[in-house]
Structure formats: structure tokens, C-alpha cells
């Protein structure tokens, strides 16, 4: 059990955004967290990654209690995440975005960096080399010197994933990675996710787009902040509550 969430709850004033949510992710799995818009998926993400504090409940990562810890602490424990909106360092180039993300491993000290020690130079060379490899993996090598904010939307999302990979996480959390992508881009992204999983990564992905199910080993469905279904892809696809949640939303829209 790499990630274990127990009875996670979040109240915003009077509004219960997440209610007694439970979930676990085993090492090497790709777990999908699906649900219609506003179901609370990103809130759960933010609760796990420390962006907001839970009202109650527990989050355990790799056996350690990480409930409510700050985002940078969780990154150091091995959780990397992407963001749905504004996911990048906009003033950096594509390459700089990834190199900057090699902050934790290897970790250079302040004075090491200042005095340009051999260790520091070695770390930087490693970071650069790995960054180029990651850009290759996600297909962004051609645009490595382009300013991140000039990239088209699909590329930006891909860069977000590249950035998260630079943290060398054990758990990769992707927030709506397929959002706004066309068919080719979706196929490519899912390809990258599969490749990364084959290299041993555990992935937890939020997605609104049901196509993600093709990749998942395990799926958790959420609506109105509560779990409404869980299981294999088949089980969840045929779960009447899940169907209602999605169809119901379509009816209203």
C-alpha cells in the first residue's frame, strides 16, 4: 500500500467538499479517480498533496503519516503532481522548466551552488542530461528552447508531466492530464503514462474523460465529495450509480 487514505473530510465553512473519502493505491498500479465536474476530485488531490488541510481523516504515504503536511515536504517524500491550471513556470523555456524541477534529487547545497563546487557541477550535469531524456520521452525535445508560455496547450500539459517526473517520484499524481487535448494528444499521453508505469511508477490520475479507463488497473468513482463506486474498470463502468452520475450530469447540461 503506497498511498492510503482514510476517512478524509474537508469542510469549507458549511459546505462539505469531501466526505469520509477512503482510497488506497498499491505500488505499481495506475489508479483512476473519476467523477463528473465538481465532484471533488481536485479537492482530494489538494488534500493529499498538502495544498489544503483536511478537516479530519488521515493520509498515509509509504507507511508514514503525511496528513496535512506542506506540499514541498510531500514532494521530498516522493509524490510528484501536475496541475490542471497554470501548471508551468511560464517565463522559463521548456528545458529550463524541467531542469528547475531537479531541485530535490540531486540536492545541491546553497554554498555548493554559490562556489560552483565539483559536486554542484556534477549535479547540474546530471540534471541537464536527465531533463533531455525526459523531454525525449514526452516528445518535447524539438521545443526545448521555446518559452513555456508559447507552447500550445497539449504541449504544456505534457511539460507538466515532464516536470513532475523530474521530481523522481514514487507516486505520480496527474490532475486531468487529458484536458483540452485532441485525439492524437490523448493517445500519446496515455502512451507516455503506460511507458512510465512500465518503468515502475505508480500513478494516480484524476480524469473527467472516461477514456483514461483503458489504462487503469483500479478505478474509484466520486461524486459530491463521496465515493460512489470502486473496483476494476469493468465493475465501475457497469456500476449503476456511476452511470447515473455521468448521465445525470449530461441531462442537466
Amino acid at each position, binding site marked *: 500500500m503506497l498511498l492510503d487514505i482514510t476517512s478524509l473530510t474537508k469542510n469549507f465553512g458549511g459546505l462539505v467538499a469531501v466526505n469520509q473519502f477512503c482510497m488506497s493505491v498499491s505500488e505499481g498500479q495506475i489508479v483512476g479517480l473519476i467523477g463528473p465536474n465538481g465532484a471533488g476530485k481536485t479537492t482530494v488531490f489538494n488534500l493529499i498533496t498538502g495544498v489544503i488541510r483536511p478537516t479530519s481523516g488521515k493520509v498515509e504515504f509509504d507507511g508514514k503519516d503525511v496528513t496535512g503536511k*506542506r506540499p514541498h515536504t510531500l514532494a521530498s517524500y516522493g509524490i510528484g503532481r501536475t496541475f490542471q491550471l*497554470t501548471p508551468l513556470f511560464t517565463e522559463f523555456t521548456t528545458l529550463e522548466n524541467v531542469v528547475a524541477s531537479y*531541485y530535490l534529487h540531486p540536492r545541491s547545497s*546553497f554554498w555548493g*551552488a*554559490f562556489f560552483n563546487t565539483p559536486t*554542484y557541477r556534477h549535479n547540474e550535469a546530471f540534471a541537464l542530461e536527465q531533463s533531455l531524456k525526459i523531454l525525449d520521452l514526452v516528445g518535447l525535445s524539438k521545443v526545448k528552447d521555446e518559452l513555456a508560455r508559447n507552447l500550445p496547450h497539449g504541449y504544456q500539459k505534457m511539460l507538466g508531466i515532464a516536470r*513532475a517526473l523530474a521530481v523522481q517520484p514514487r507516486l505520480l499524481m496527474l490532475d486531468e492530464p487529458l484536458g483540452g487535448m485532441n485525439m492524437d*494528444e490523448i493517445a500519446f499521453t496515455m502512451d507516455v503514462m503506460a511507458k512510465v508505469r512500465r518503468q515502475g511508477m505508480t500513478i494516480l490520475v484524476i480524469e473527467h474523460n472516461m477514456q483514461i479507463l483503458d489504462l487503469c488497473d483500479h478505478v474509484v468513482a466520486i461524486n459530491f465529495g463521496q465515493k460512489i463506486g470502486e473496483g476494476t474498470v469493468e465493475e465501475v463502468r457497469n456500476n449503476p450509480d456511476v452511470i447515473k452520475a455521468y448521465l445525470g450530469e449530461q441531462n442537466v447540461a
Partner: protein
Amino acid sequence: MPIGSSPKQRKRITSIVFYATIIIFLALLPQLGLPVYPMHTLIGVFIWIIVASSLRLLDLSGQGSIGHAAFMAIGAYTSGILAKFLGWSPWITMPIGVLATGVIAFLVAIPFTRVRGIYFTMVSLFFGIGVLAVNQVFSKFTGGYSGIGSIPMLFGYNKTPYYYFCLALLVICLSIIYRMEHSRIGLTWKAVAQSHAVASSIGINEAWQRILCLGVSCCIAGIAGVAYAHYYSLLTQETFSFNTSINVFVYMTVGGPRYFAGPILGTAALILIPEQLRSLREYVPFIFAGILLIVLFLMPQGLAGLPDQFRQRFARSPKVKSLPAEEGVSKRAP
């Protein structure tokens, strides 16, 4: 980039050669017979460039301060008071002054970095004024409005040693800033400035980085402060007033905060040009305002951004990498 591709390294070497030439030229000036008054002016320019550059360093981490003169004041008054009333040598009191500035900077950084953006700027504004008020409250030691005079000077009455001393300080401080900016330290600060959320997600303790940046920036301002105290030998309420802080802020902004050379050009222009035209006496502020207006309306990237501005204007064709609609991300690069 610390270890970058060749064009960046070439650019860096060009910059270093360029700056080295200017430094050598400045170092030779007194030998070529620089008169006293211009030397005096240049010493001032050196000191204010240090402050403006330290302000820019702070700006790298996304924090804009309009109270920076207060940190100069802390260093200056600490060193000045110790030297004058306890009779210690300025060479001992100066490091103490810088240390005092650093300690206070880190202390106030902890609460002050809780807020960001314009809120931080407002806090810096009132911190600057607050330090002046503290100055008044302890006027028994600090001389209040009329300040302290006859602060022991570093060298005799000949200005030349001060010129070289301040030039050396300038080179040292600028080198420190340059090194930080172009290493992972600067990279981390720039990351924090662009997005706290993303920076946190890659493991950067962005609150601590902002504190660190503020502390370093203020220490450098403190260095300028102690140099000021033991050269001009007189500190008054007006020396480090709100106007001073705003002036330094303007020097940096006019020069172009995105460029290393920005504070250098901005300070030099806004001190030397009005100085050259001082015969206009009470009309000089119009000149100053005129420079501001010209840069504001005609040079959006500041003085140091002019080369880039021309480059963008006269570029042959926009270098837009048009990605054909069909070539989705799925096509792997050859």
C-alpha cells in the same frame, strides 16, 4: 544555466569581458587625472548601484520592496554609532553593521514573507517608515532628525582610496549577485516568483527561499550602508528616507528589472544625467521626471532592454514555431 549550451556560454563570456573592460576603465580614471568632484559623484553612483542591484536580487524572487533604504540605514547607523561613540575602528564596525543588518533582515523576513505581491510591497513601505520612526524614538543615540556627523572615516581626506574601495565593493557585490542569479540559487528564486504552487510541488520550500532572498538582499544593502556612513561621514533622517527607497526602486525599474545590467544603467543614468545638468538648479527634477517618462513610454523593458527591443523590432520575421494542426504530439521527433 549553470552548465548550458554553447551559445549561452559564449554570451556569458562576452558579458564578462564587457564588464571587465568597464571596470578596468573605471579603475584607470583616477590615474588619468579624474578631478575631485566627478570622483565624488562616481563614488555615490557605485554605492547606489550596489543598493539598486540588491533590490533587483530581491525582485528575482517576486518580492518588490520600496523600503530598502531602511536596511542601508540599519547598517550605516550601527557602524557609525559604534565607530563614533565607542571609538572602534571602522574596519571592525563595518562588518558588525552588515551583520546587524543581516540579523534584523532575517528576523523581519519571517513575518514579512507571510504576505506576497502588493501586500509585501506595502509592508516594506511601512517598515521603511517605521525604521525612520525608530530612529526618532532613539534620537538620543541616533541624533534624531539632524543625525550623526563626523563619523570616523575609513581613509584620510583624499578621495582616491574611497573611490577604489567602493569600486572594489561594487565589483564584489555585483559578482556575488551575478553568481547567485546564474546558479541554481537564482533558478530556484525565479521559480518561486513565477508560481508558488508549482515550486512547492517540486520540493522547494518557497517561504524559506523568499526569506533567504530577502536576507541576502538586505545584507548587500547593509554593505552599501556602511560604506556610505564612513565616506560621507554624516547621516540624517533624510539620508535613508522614504524618498531614498523610492529613488532606488526607480533606478532599478528604469534600468530594467529583468536585466542584470538594469540597476547599473538606471542608477548611472538617473544620477549622472541630472548631475551634468545641475546648472538648471531648481529645474533639475524636471530632467529626472523627463527621463522617467521617456523610459516609461518608449522603453517598456527599461534601459538595459534596449538591445532586445531593437532586436525584436527589426527581426526579419517572427520566429514563431508554427506547429501544423496535423502534427499532434503523437508524432515522435525524427
